């Protein structure tokens, strides 16, 4: 055995012994009920935000401004990553050979399944566990299995360019900002939900602005991560012959 494994085993044993002695000496009382703040959220979310789901209510209503700035951080990180590459798509067009027909067909089926699950996560995000972030990530997973199987060059020929993806992302972020800013017109605070947006339209519960936020956020996350996957799929050979570093 190498030294590293022995050190790891020693560390694990020390952790076990330390926690055992700490249990005997301290004998701590483990928490057995919900914290006060969480109780407030769980009890009042249906009245204050018209959403039965406390997590979405916290993400987009109670701490809505927080989440909007986090979306901005996400946007800047992705734009920074893409700007660092400055790739022309000629390098990507060289990679046109995907995998076999078998894997292409099965990927089509699997990607369709993932996309439908993602749609369910997004559109039910204000009623059941889920929302914009997980739904968008699920769509990104679908595109991440599509890109290696069908090859990035084929996708670009079909019209899926990273410029378009970043444009979708910018549009979704603008729409998200508009949804947040619209209540200011009537003199309410920014990111107001229930005092401005209706709780349901035509009998469909939409929980005010929460479903809109979920929709735009999922678009932004999905297009952003698809653009990243597209850029990261450039093979090194294509890069060397391409536009240069």
């Amino acid at each position: 055995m190498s030294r590293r494994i022995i050190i790891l085993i020693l560390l694990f044993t020390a952790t076990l012994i330390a926690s055992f002695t700490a249990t005997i000496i301290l004998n701590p009382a483990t928490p057995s009920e919900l914290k006060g703040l969480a109780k407030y959220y769980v009890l009042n979310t249906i009245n204050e935000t018209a959403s039965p789901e406390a997590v979405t209510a916290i993400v987009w209503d109670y701490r809505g401004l927080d989440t909007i700035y986090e979306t901005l951080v996400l946007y800047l990180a992705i734009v920074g990553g893409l700007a660092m590459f400055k790739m022309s798509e000629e390098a990507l067009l060289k990679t046109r050979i995907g995998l076999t027909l078998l894997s292409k067909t099965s990927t089509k089926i699997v990607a369709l399944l993932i996309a439908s699950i993602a749609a369910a996560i997004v559109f039910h995000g204000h009623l059941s566990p889920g929302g914009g972030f997980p739904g968008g990530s699920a769509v990104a997973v679908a595109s991440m299995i599509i890109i290696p199987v069908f090859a990035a060059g084929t996708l670009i020929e079909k019209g899926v360019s990273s410029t378009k993806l970043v444009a979708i992302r910018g549009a979704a972020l603008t729409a998200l900002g508009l949804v947040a800013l619209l209540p200011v017109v009537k003199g309410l605070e920014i990111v107001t939900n229930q005092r401005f947006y209706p709780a349901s339209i035509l009998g469909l519960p939409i929980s005010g602005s929460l479903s809109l936020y979920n929709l735009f956020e999922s678009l932004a996350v999905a297009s952003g991560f698809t653009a990243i996957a597209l850029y990261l799929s450039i093979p090194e050979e294509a890069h060397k012959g391409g536009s240069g570093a």
Partner: protein
Amino acid sequence: MVVVLEAFTYILIIAVLGLNALVSIYGIVYGRSLVKKLISLTILSDTVLVAVIFAGFYYAYPIVPPVYQDLAGAGREFLVKHASDPLPQALVLTGIVIGLAVNALIAFGIIQAYRLAKTTDARKVVEVLSGVEVTE
């Protein structure tokens, strides 16, 4: 006995999280390859996220998601006794996506450094890119 076991598991999880953070910080500081540093960073961020989730943990059975099943008064009482804490979930939800974006940014940087320096060894990258020799 059960109470002691509950307390032991509770402390053990905290200790293992601490150990995990320790090992990943070691990886970030002493790892030579930039890729291994990035892997350690993701382990550290996941450890922190698990710790945040663990802060909202409490013993109850069964645990249900913090979603209204029915709007009657009995449903409320059940939810307060059995719902999982929604606040850490909301924080972790955004934290995961932000972490993913930042990791992608770092990955872009590492790939670019590899293309310029033809290595991911942190010291050699600095040597090649700046011309300054790195000494221990």
